[in-house]
């Protein structure tokens, strides 16, 4: 009988909660480490671009207190991935500062490894010139201008930088941008668990209790890994896993349900078997790990797209609704002239977009039925410009003409928009966009990542 490693995921995301008693139970059952993911690209490019973490800080601190407290009590490592939601340098620093506070307040003593995954533009230019940056699909165009104009870039680490930190005695690892799976695969692979087992278990664990049959609330998940497979079982007795619930989780947020691309290779679950071994536990075997010819890490980057100001309005008049597309396109043309006359913006300095809820506001160009069929629509006048001042100045040049824009059925001054607020508009702030969907081919999986140490 070989090694058995017990892995615990505190929850799916550090900013959501979990039951403290579930974590205590899992740790008492002999967990070898506790992991938790702290981020995602799911909430869009804002966090990476701005450098702002996603809170609430108080909630993240409370969850970290429980995770780190339990790990230190049991003398096992805690591994936190994608600190501060986007895993850039300011996000990592934010999380490390919370850990410092906790260490002080609780009188804890431990060795902390913080792994920085932000890539400086100069480093990225060098990698680009060496032809180490390769596109995924679909990828935006990428060149040195994109690198220079980007606001912030991170590389998504695999298991290796975490393993280096653990091997050097880290009790708490706070990682910048990190593969969710790597959080849970790093330690087991170090202990001799095959990659196909460790990566597959990582995929199931990374969303916490999301792989249970009936997710009642966010909670912990645990798995025991050995050389031939793993058994997943929620530590909370109120929750249970079924073969279907575990297998179904491989679908989640993954474009291909059988193929999970990770730094260094891919997990192929085509032949995986999911078997109930009790009414709450599932045994998983049969995944394959196929090593990549060349080790690579995904790069994420955000660029500033401009500054946004918006107006919210309702339209209820059936005659306007009956000709809404024409009404808005003729308004668009009229206000473009007005903006040019009044503000003389540089070409391309702003975009004006009418978002119509009740037509295609939710699905945009993917809406198969882009016709308003209800008795009212909601309108967002969306301006994104090269400065906040310009976006703000453009707004009244759109909403005021729009308010009185004529239709042929009416003679005399009309008021087309119902504004729920005064003032009708609001400045939203900086807007970012993801500017890269590429991988970086590496000779050394740890090369882009820098670990700093603190002892408390």
């Amino acid at each position, binding site marked *: 009988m070989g090694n058995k490693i017990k892995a615990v995921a505190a929850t799916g995301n550090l900013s959501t909660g979990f039951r403290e008693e579930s974590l205590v139970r899992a740790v008492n059952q002999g967990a070898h480490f506790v992991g938790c993911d702290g981020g995602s690209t799911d909430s869009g490019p804002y966090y990476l671009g701005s450098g702002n973490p996603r809170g609430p800080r108080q909630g993240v601190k409370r969850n970290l207190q429980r995770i780190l407290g339990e790990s230190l009590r049991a003398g096992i490592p805690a591994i936190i991935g994608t600190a501060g939601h986007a895993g850039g340098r300011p996000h990592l620093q934010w999380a490390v500062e919370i850990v410092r506070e906790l260490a002080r307040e609780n009188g804890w003593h431990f060795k902390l490894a913080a792994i920085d995954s932000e890539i400086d533009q100069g480093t990225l230019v060098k990698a680009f010139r060496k032809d180490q940056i390769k596109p995924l699909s679909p990828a935006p165009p990428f060149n040195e201008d994109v690198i220079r104009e980007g606001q912030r870039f991170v590389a998504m680490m695999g298991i290796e930088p975490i393993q280096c930190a653990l091997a050097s005695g880290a009790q708490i690892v706070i990682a910048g941008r990190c593969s969710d799976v790597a959080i849970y695969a790093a330690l087991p692979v170090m202990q001799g668990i095959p990659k196909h087992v460790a990566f597959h278990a990582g995929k199931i664990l990374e969303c916490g209790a999301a792989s249970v049959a009936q997710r009642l609330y966010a909670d912990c998940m645990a798995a025991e890994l050995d050389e031939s497979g793993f058994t997943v079982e929620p530590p909370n007795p109120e929750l249970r896993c079924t073969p279907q619930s575990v297998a*179904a989780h491989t679908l989640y947020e993954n474009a291909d349900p059988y193929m999970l691309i990770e730094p260094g290779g891919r997990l192929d679950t085509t032949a995986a078997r999911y078997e109930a071994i009790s009414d709450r536990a599932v045994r998983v075997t049969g995944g394959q790990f196929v090593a990549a010819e060349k080790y690579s890490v995904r790069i994420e980057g955000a660029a500033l797209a401009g500054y946004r100001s918006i107006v919210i309005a309702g339209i209820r008049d059936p005659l306007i609704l009956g000709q809404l597309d024409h009404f808005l396109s003729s308004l668009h043309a009229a206000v473009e002239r007005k903006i040019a006359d009044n503000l003389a913006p540089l070409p391309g300095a702003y975009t004006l977009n009418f978002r119509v809820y009740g037509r295609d506001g939710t699905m945009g160009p993917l809406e198969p039925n882009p016709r308003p069929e209800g008795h009212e629509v909601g309108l967002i006048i969306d301006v994104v410009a090269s400065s906040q001042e310009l976006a703000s100045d453009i707004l009244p040049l759109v909403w005021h003409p729009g308010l009185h824009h004529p239709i042929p059925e009416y003679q005399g001054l009309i008021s087309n928009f119902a504004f729920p607020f005064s003032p009708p508009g609001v400045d939203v702030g900086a807007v970012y966009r993801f500017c890269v969907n590429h991988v970086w081919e590496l000779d050394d999986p740890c090369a882009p990542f820098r670990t700093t140490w603190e002892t408390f």
Partner: protein
Amino acid sequence: MRELWQFTKLIRSKNAGPFELTFDVMFKDRAGYDLVLKSGVLSAEAIAKIYGVALEEIRLFNIEQILTVKFSIPRKVFSGDVSDTDVYGGQFHGPLVRLLVDEP
């Protein structure tokens, strides 16, 4: 004729990273899964028509083990981009819910 949602326990869309959307249609039972597959309402051709994407852009998986039809398409507008409408990609499944399923 019944609508697709009447055969399913879950219909959802979601980002698969910022550049792709993925759709999961999970069935209540084997009979419903078989009937819907046979009806063609979730064929690659049908999906291409609903979402206005080319056939070769669709990755479609019929996963018998968990009675699920899954497909993924590239995003025309990346998540959070200036003209994006759904940052999490969570509402793009809407047009699937009431698809009419032919029953023999």
